[in-house]
């Protein structure tokens, strides 16, 4: 049993599971900030019921997100000790800053938010939700800063047999990290918005709590429209930067084998990684890949064949992941545009509401695929160009990792099932009939 392979599986499973919950925490906290601020400013009871209803779902989701996040911080030590030793000087400090400067804020104030309804004024209580949202999103910023270093290491030098920080400012201004931040944070808002729209659509289709859910839907619609456009725009910026600093990843995203100018994009292909070509391709449009990567139809795009075999990422997963993400991202823009045109006729649009209900899982798939493209596409490097994943694992016995991997799968499987059951149950139950502060 190869501990490296098992550790990779375990880390992928743990991260992807954690990342099922984090985006909703980020996105929904932003929407809750809007709802509760609206209540604090207008005193309109509907906004309070709305805040409490979405807040209930937020808290269940938050609990699973937090507990699965703690294991991630420690897995760098348990499973990736060579990596931790090599880049801890930089990577470790970014994680420590995340805990000290952001996660503390979110976790301390979440307790105050849950228990503080009667101890705080409406305005102060809404302010607490602001702090939760700020803390959560700042956490994401620091984690993406840390990931940005793995993607495109800057501000360091190799000294004493490890990477040591030389320039903190360069680390903070790492273009790769900044592009990831402006791409990932709004995509969490897309997910939160589609969640709110989907659950609202369920109740609107049942013709219950119409006022509350029409308003919820419309609020989320604005968040969803703006964020899905932002995600597409920043995704384009991000792809251009990837083309520049991670050409192998770009080539894998597009299953692009031969270096050429006026490089074509293929709508679909079946890459054969052994033979180093696509078995078949569908819909090849010349020049488009050059344009996407370099904003120039004639630019030369490096193909995978120009990279030694041991420096190519897995092509099929990266290629399919990217296709799925982009396809879904486009769909999100269309769906929110349709919604925007029908925003005042929601109750007369059952077809659209049905689609939005069934669309709830789609942003989850898209955001997970985005993570897959970023992480699988970075392989075989754990830190791009600096350290290989195969050199990074802990010197622990394979059987130990096997046992923990099985435990992760069992515990997380169970956790996921219970979390999903509770979220569904509470979402279907709908809001409390009236606002009684006494019986939250």
């Amino acid at each position, binding site marked *: 049993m190869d501990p490296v392979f098992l550790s990779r599986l375990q880390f992928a499973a743990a991260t992807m599971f954690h990342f099922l919950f984090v985006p909703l925490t980020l996105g929904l906290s932003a929407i809750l900030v809007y709802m509760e601020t609206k209540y604090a400013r207008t005193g309109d009871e509907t906004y309070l019921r709305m805040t409490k209803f979405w807040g209930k779902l937020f808290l269940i989701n938050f609990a699973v997100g937090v507990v699965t996040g703690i294991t991630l911080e420690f897995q760098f030590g348990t499973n990736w000790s060579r990596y931790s030793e090599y880049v801890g000087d930089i990577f470790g400090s970014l994680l420590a800053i995340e805990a000290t400067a952001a996660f503390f804020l979110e976790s301390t104030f979440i307790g105050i938010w849950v228990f503080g309804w009667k101890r705080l004024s409406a305005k102060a209580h809404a302010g607490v939700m602001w702090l939760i949202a700020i803390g959560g999103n700042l956490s994401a910023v620091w984690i993406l800063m840390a990931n940005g270093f793995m993607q495109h290491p800057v501000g360091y030098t190799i000294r004493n047999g490890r990477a040591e920080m030389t320039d903190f400012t360069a680390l903070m201004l790492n273009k790769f990290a900044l592009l990831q931040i402006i791409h990932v944070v709004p995509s969490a808002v897309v997910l939160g918005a589609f969640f709110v729209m989907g659950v609202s659509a369920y109740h609107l289709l049942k013709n219950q709590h119409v006022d509350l859910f029409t308003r919820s839907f419309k609020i989320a619609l604005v968040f969803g429209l703006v964020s899905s456009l932002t995600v597409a725009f920043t995704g384009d910026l991000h792809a251009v930067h990837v083309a520049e600093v991670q050409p192998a990843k770009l080539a894998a995203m597009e299953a692009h084998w031969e270096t050429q100018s006026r490089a074509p994009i293929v709508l679909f292909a079946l890459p054969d990684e052994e033979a180093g070509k696509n078995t078949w391709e569908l819909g090849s449009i010349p020049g488009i890949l050059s344009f996407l990567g370099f904003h120039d139809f004639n630019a030369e795009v490096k193909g995978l064949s120009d990279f030694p075999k041991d420096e190519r990422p897995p092509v099929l997963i990266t290629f399919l992941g990217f296709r799925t993400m982009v396809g879904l991202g486009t769909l999100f823009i269309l769906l929110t545009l349709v919604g925007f045109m029908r925003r005042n006729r929601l109750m007369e649009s059952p077809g659209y509401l049905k689609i939005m209900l069934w669309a709830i899982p789609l942003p989850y798939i898209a955001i997970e695929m985005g993570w897959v493209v970023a992480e699988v596409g970075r392989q075989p490097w754990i830190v791009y160009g600096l350290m290989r994943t195969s050199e990074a694992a802990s010197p622990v016995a394979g059987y130990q990792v096997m046992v923990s991997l099985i*435990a992760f799968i069992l515990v997380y499987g169970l956790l996921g099932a219970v979390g999903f059951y509770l979220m569904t149950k509470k979402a279907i139950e709908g809001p409390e009939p009236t606002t009684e502060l006494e019986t939250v």
Partner: protein
Amino acid sequence: MELQTTWFILWGLLWAIFFMTDGFDFGIGTLYPFLGKSDTDRRMMMNSIGPLWDGNEVWLITAGGVTFAAFPKVYAVMFSTLYAPLLIILFALILRGVAFEFRGQIHSTGWKRIWDAGIFIGSATPALLFGVVFANIFRGIPFDSNGLYHGNLLMLLNPYGALGGALFMTLFMLHGANWLAIKTTGDLHDRSVATAGKLWLLTVPLAILFLGASFFATSLYDNYFRYPALFLVILVTVVALLAVRYFIVEQSFFKAWFASAVTIVGATFFGIAGLFPTLYPSIVDPGASLTAFNASSSPLTLKIMLLVVAVFLPLVIAYQTWAYNMFKGKLTEHELEY
């Protein structure tokens, strides 16, 4: 003071604060099946720490993060050699966290019973294992200069390690019982006070035994004989432990809780002061031991992190104190959220 020395102290301090804050959460979770006779009792117990435990737990993440940032080699070797116990602790913490949130979501006895078990297992396991692991660190861990671990999970349960586990667990339960005495009323309050008294009687012999066993099983006292001023740490800890008893009898439960907090910080620093400058000693190859000087980050990282900590820790302490203050006083039945 040198950067590395400063960071060594901060490292110890963060672990101590984690044990002091989340310690009473662990203690209450461990006492949960014993003191929580009725559903209301149990909800009272959960709600007594409801607004605070989430923030308390972040001290663990910060202690881990700071170990990573300031002493990356310690983070790497410590957590990979303690692979099994650490993952067990993490799974337990997962269970505890979701149990708090899930228990009240469905009103069925069977459902609640599952999460009742979750709260107990999720609290008692870390309480015990943190003690076992830290006692073993005081004693030395069997790893070589390549960071390879030569042992297994059961070896951690050597007599000294087991004693450390028992001491930590009892201290956390005492600390938790003191908190319950502050927060609850009626029958639950009376039983909490009685339990605190009994736990104190158990803590004293365990503490004496641990102090004595440390002389034979570890080399912690070397530092104490070299710098006798360090004996003050032990003195403060012992006085604090005695004060716990005094304040319980006096019915000053907040002071009793404060004294048990000081005892926990003192007990942690008893080991930390003895270890200095070593953070993670090897029992098989002293040359492999990781110290503040051979395992630290670069001076630049240490300086930047010092700045971060200097700005944010006071801020965190300020808003957490504000939160503690907001939820001070006795719990009432109509403000139970869990």
